Every structure is written in C-alpha cells, then in structure tokens.
C-alpha cells in the first residue's frame, strides 16, 4: 500500500514537472536607459514583438529608465544577486568594474561569429583581457555645433569642415569676442553636469598632448604624469575661456536642459555636444541652420586636429549570474539585435549612428549626422571620454576637479595634481 502511494506520488510529481517544464518559457529582463526616447522605444517594441513571435519560448519584460536610475537599479540588483538578464551599458571603466566582479557574461563567441560586421575599433570599450563582454551598438562623437545664423550676424567666418579647416586658438578667442560684442553667448554649457565641462578639458589635453597622452598617463607609462605640460596648459586655457566670458552667465549651475535651451532658442552660437543631441535639435529647433566645426588647435600642440572625442555609446551586456537557459536565450536575442534586418530597422526608425559595417539604406541619416560620420571615418584617433574610460574612482575625481577648474576655485596646477594623486592610487 505504502509503495503504491509512493509510486503514485512520484508519478504525479513527475507529471507536474513535465507539464511545467514543457510549457515553461524562459523569462528575460531587459533594462535600458532609454526612458522617453520615443523613437528608440518604438524600435524596441517592434523588435521584441518580432523576436518573441519567432521564439515563442522566450518571454521579455523590458524596463526603460533614465541614465542615473539605471545605474542605481543595476548596481543594487547585482549586489543583491538578482540582476537583469540584459542591460544597456556605456562600456569603459564601469563595465570593467562589473566584469572584475564577475557580473558580466563573456560573449566572445557571439562577437567572433559576427566577423567583419563589427569593426575592431569599437570593441575596445567592452573588451577586457582579450575577452568581449558587450555588443556595441551605437556610437557618438563630440563636436562643436554652431548656429550659422549667429555666426553671420556677428560676422564670424565659419571654418569649413569639408575643407579640413580648423580654427587656431587665436581665431577662437577672436570669434568669442565678436559674439560677446553682439550680445551673443559664445558657448553654452551645462556645468551642473560635470561631464559637459570635461569635454573642453579632454579636447584641450588631446590638442596639446596628442592621441595617447591621456591613456599613457593613466596607465602610468614612464615619463607621463598629470603634472606634465599638456594637462596644466589645458587647464590654463579653460580658465582663460571662463575669464573672457566664453560661457553663459551662471553656467556652473545650469543643467543639461538649461544649457541646451540657450542653443535651441538662438541665444548661444556654439555648443560642444555629443551626436545624440541632434535628434532633440531637429525636434526643438527644426528650422535652425546648424553646422559642425572641429575643436580648435592650440599653439605648439601635438594633437592631430582630426582627433575626435567619441566612443561606442550603447553596449548591450548579458549578466553572468543567471541560468544557462537564460544566457542562451539572451545571446540569441543579441544575435538577433545585430542582424542586418534589425539594424536597418534601427537606423530608419531612430537615426543614431550604428557601429556596424553594413550596407545601410541611402540617406537614412540626418545630413548633420552624415557629416559627423564622415568626421568619424576621417578621424586619426577617437578619444573615449575619460569619465567613461577610467575606473569609477578616477572618473569621479576627474569630474569634481572639472567643477573646481571652471569655477576658478583651484588653479590648473592644483587640478592636474589632484588627477595625478588619484592616478597614483590606481597602481
């Protein structure tokens, strides 16, 4: 009697397990930083719908957040051992610290299988010790966007980017003075977001010290120090700009949107910003005559004027701390995301610059973006933003010091020294 009961129970348990495992689908969680980016959301919705139609055993729960919220949510979830399956990363230093903590799945096989479609150059921000930990998707670069009408109004010659023209520092200063005379804000910048300040400093260091100056210094190569001339001189130039009033009044307190507003409503002539801002520009100021120029050169600078600030913008990563089934499904999804069909969908719906080498439809990009892409192709070197490239501790010291530098609270030398002190700790 007892035996029959046991067998009966076992049978039922087996049956239940079978039924459930047969119908059980893999549940994936996808976290993005695209809250409110309407065009990207449309693309993601469509892509997910198609993918789930083709793979009925995979279910998705997508959560769109804002940048800052994603950082908090992701970190807490990882620390508590309940990470999302797939998330959107920016690559670089923070991704590296996640990798070091064993939180990111190695997807080298997936990347390798894509072959030539993903150029080597875009992989650096998600490759550590020879292994690939992310699928780069879009990229950005930083340019000075200009309001051509204001240039004409102030009588400032526009350096022609198509003819490789670049301003010298003197020309920049002269232009700034002309703008000021016409009551035009030369540069608008959101100093509350310290990374915007950092753009100027990074470009100047590059113009003074050349391509590898920063990475060599951070890696503690012999003879390199943050106390060296390129860093100090860059700091001095920044304080010169602040002194002659190159930025709008109260720029240190201005947020990203506050600063952008000055450009959109035609108060500011120049705006040093990343490619992503073009979408908003077209929405907010559809009729504005906008162009791009390169960051000016400096006297005795070693940097090539085609050098650009920029890097992959979006990198998709898979969590290491999840089940095998989930991991396989997640890889399948990333593979799908990077398929030609989906990438084409992305370009036509969103219009951001993708990293893939594919035959993309003619004119899928905004003319301004086409110009940016041309610049990226011609660039001698792409400098990843320091705060993304370096370990989080250094990044945060760097950003804080940018505020000190621009506010004049610390001298160029002190700021350079603070960088050096933090870099020493890294080794």
């Amino acid at each position, binding site marked *: 009697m007892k035996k029959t009961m046991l067998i009966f129970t076992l049978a039922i348990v087996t049956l239940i397990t079978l039924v459930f495992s047969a119908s059980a689908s893999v549940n994936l969680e996808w976290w993005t930083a695209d809250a409110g980016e309407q065009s990207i959301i449309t693309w993601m919705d469509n892509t997910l719908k198609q993918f789930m139609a083709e793979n009925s055993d995979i279910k998705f729960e997508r959560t769109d957040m804002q940048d800052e919220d994603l*950082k*908090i949510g992701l*970190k807490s979830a*990882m*620390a508590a*051992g309940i990470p999302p399956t797939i998330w959107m990363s920016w690559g670089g230093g*923070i991704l590296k*610290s*996640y990798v070091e*903590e*064993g*939180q990111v799945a190695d997807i080298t096989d997936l990347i390798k299988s894509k072959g030539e479609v993903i150029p080597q150059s875009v992989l650096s921000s998600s490759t550590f010790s020879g292994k690939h930990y992310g699928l780069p998707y879009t990229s950005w670069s930083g340019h000075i966007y200009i309001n051509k009408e204001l240039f004409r109004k102030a009588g400032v010659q526009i350096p022609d980017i198509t003819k490789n023209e670049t301003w010298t520092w003197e020309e920049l200063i002269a232009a700034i003075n002309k703008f000021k005379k016409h009551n035009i804000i030369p540069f608008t910048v959101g*100093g*509350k977001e*310290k990374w915007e300040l950092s753009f100027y400093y990074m470009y100047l260091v590059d113009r003074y010290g050349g391509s590898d100056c920063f990475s060599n210094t951070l890696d503690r190569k012999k003879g390199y120090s943050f106390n060296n001339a390129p860093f100090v001189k860059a700091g001095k130039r920044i304080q010169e700009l602040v002194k002659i009033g190159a930025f*709008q*009044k*109260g*720029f*240190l*307190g*201005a*947020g990203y949107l*506050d600063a952008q*507003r*000055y450009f959109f409503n035609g*108060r500011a002539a120049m705006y040093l910003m990343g490619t992503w801002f073009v979408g908003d520009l077209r929405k907010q100021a559809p009729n504005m005559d906008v162009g791009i120029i390169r960051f000016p050169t400096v006297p005795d600078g070693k940097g090539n004027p085609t050098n650009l600030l920029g890097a992959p913008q979006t990198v998709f990563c898979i969590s290491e701390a999840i089940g095998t089934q989930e991991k396989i499904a997640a890889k399948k999804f990333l593979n799908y995301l990077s398929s030609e069909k989906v990438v084409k969908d992305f370009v036509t719906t969103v219009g951001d610059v993708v990293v893939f080498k594919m035959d993309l439809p003619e004119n899928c990009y905004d003319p301004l973006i086409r110009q940016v892409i041309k610049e990226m192709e011609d660039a001698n070197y792409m400098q990843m933003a320091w705060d993304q490239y370096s370990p*989080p*501790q250094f*990044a*945060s010291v760097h950003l804080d010091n940018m*505020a*000190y530098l621009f*506010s004049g*609270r610390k001298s160029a030398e002190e700021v350079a020294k603070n960088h050096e002190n933090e870099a020493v700790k890294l080794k």
Partner: protein
Amino acid sequence: MRKKNNVVAYFFLFPALIMFVLFFIYPNLEVIYLSLFKWAGISPKKTFIGFYNFQVLFSDLDFLKAVFNTLMIAFQSMVVQVPMALILAILLNKKMKGNGTFSTIVFLPMVISLVAVGIIWRWLYDPEYGAINLILGKIGLQGLQHAWLGDVNTAFLSVLATINWVYIGFYTVIFMSALKGISPEIFEAAKVDGFNEFQTTLRIRIPMLKETIGVMFIMCISGSFKSFDLIWVMTGGGQVNSTEIVTTYLYRMAFRRMESGYASAISVTIFLICLVLIALQLKLMKITAQE
C-alpha cells in the same frame, strides 16, 4: 501606582518592533558590518580592512564640508523656519477675514513632491528666464540679478530659501493648533498686565509651546540628515561642494565611485554624529523641563 508590566507593554510594542527590527535594524546592522570592508557593492566580493574606511573618512575634507553644510541646514531651519512659522501662526489664529484661505495656502508647498519642488525652483532661479531675476529687473534692481544656483557664493543660500519655502507652512499649521490649546484667559491676563504682542509671545506663548518647539527642533535636525531629493535635483550637491550634504555625498560614493564600503562607513559616522546631537538635545530639553 507604576508597576512593571512587561507582557502588556510588549504586546503593544510587538508589531512596531518586529517591523522595525526586520526592515530597519537588520539592514542597518549589515551596513555597520560592511563599513569594515573594501567593497564595490557590485557583488559579494569584499576585503576586510578593519577601520581603515574610518581613518580615511576623518581626513576627508569633502565629507567634513558635507557634515558642516548639513548642520548649517539644521541650524538655519531652527532659527528661520520655526520663528517664521510662529509669527505666521499667531497672525493666522486671529479672528480676521480670509485667514482660512491664507492658512490653506501656507501649507500647500508641503504636498508637492520634493523632486517637483526642485524642478520648479531651478526654473525660478534660472539666470536668464527665472522669475526672480525678471522681477528684480522689473523693479529696477538689476544690480541684484544673479545666477543664483550658478554662483558658489549664493548656491547654498538659494537652496536654503527653497527648503524654507517648503517647510515653514508645515510648522505654521502645527503652531496654529498648538496655540489654540492655550486658554484665552492667559492672554486676557497678559493684556491686563499691559503686555504687547511681542512680550506676550516671548513670555507666554513660547514657554507654553516649549514641548512643541522642542519636537520641531528635533525634526529640523533629523530632516536635514535625511533630506536628499531636493538638493539632488537642484544642484546635485554641486557648486564645488558648496551645497553638498551628507546624503548626496554618500550617494556619490556608493553609486558613482563604487565605494560602497566607504559609503557604509559614512552612514555609520553620520549615525554616531546624530547620537551625540540627540544626547545633547535630550539634555537641553530635560533641563528646560525641570525649570
């Protein structure tokens, strides 16, 4: 008549205690434990470093600045918000037409989320479009126009003004009902003694409201050590640290610099600082009560 009655007492305490211990004490004990580690807060991986985090902390000038700013906010709340609220409450408690409407209005800022308040006041302080500069310009005070949040010298004051805008109404309402509890005869007596409004307030109202004011002071301090949203939205703790408070600093350590062990040490230290403050406060309150 007082005898110990543990069973009954713990019966009443039980629900509060169980939730408090589980969802408050326990996680915070873990914070204390974590403060002894070098820990990125990304995975369970951590290295024991003893009290090293605390050693670093006490020579961390940015942290000391954040503590100072937080204490300034607490102090300022006590000496500006509470007296201002008392004045408003005295006025609003008079039998005058329109006081009902006024007192409804006064409380309004309290019900708006602090994030929203932050967004609104960022607009008001905007150097170009902000109402404050616009009004100053209209009444001929162009000289006072200013990048309120953008200037290291005014950012902190501007934040303080916003904090006051939010909380004065709350204290006013509390004072209003407390003042109603004082019997009218006392005021009659004061009038006979020839007290003017100021003297009545100083000699009668404030002593009668001692308890209420004491609790308010404690709320000012605890509020300053817990506030986060408003400053985060308005300045991000920025302006070269001039608006950094302990919570924004802690947040940056944990989520920007990935130094969760250090951030835990900060929380423990803040807690210890607060314990000292409480002890002081209790002592002061007791002394006044014994008078």
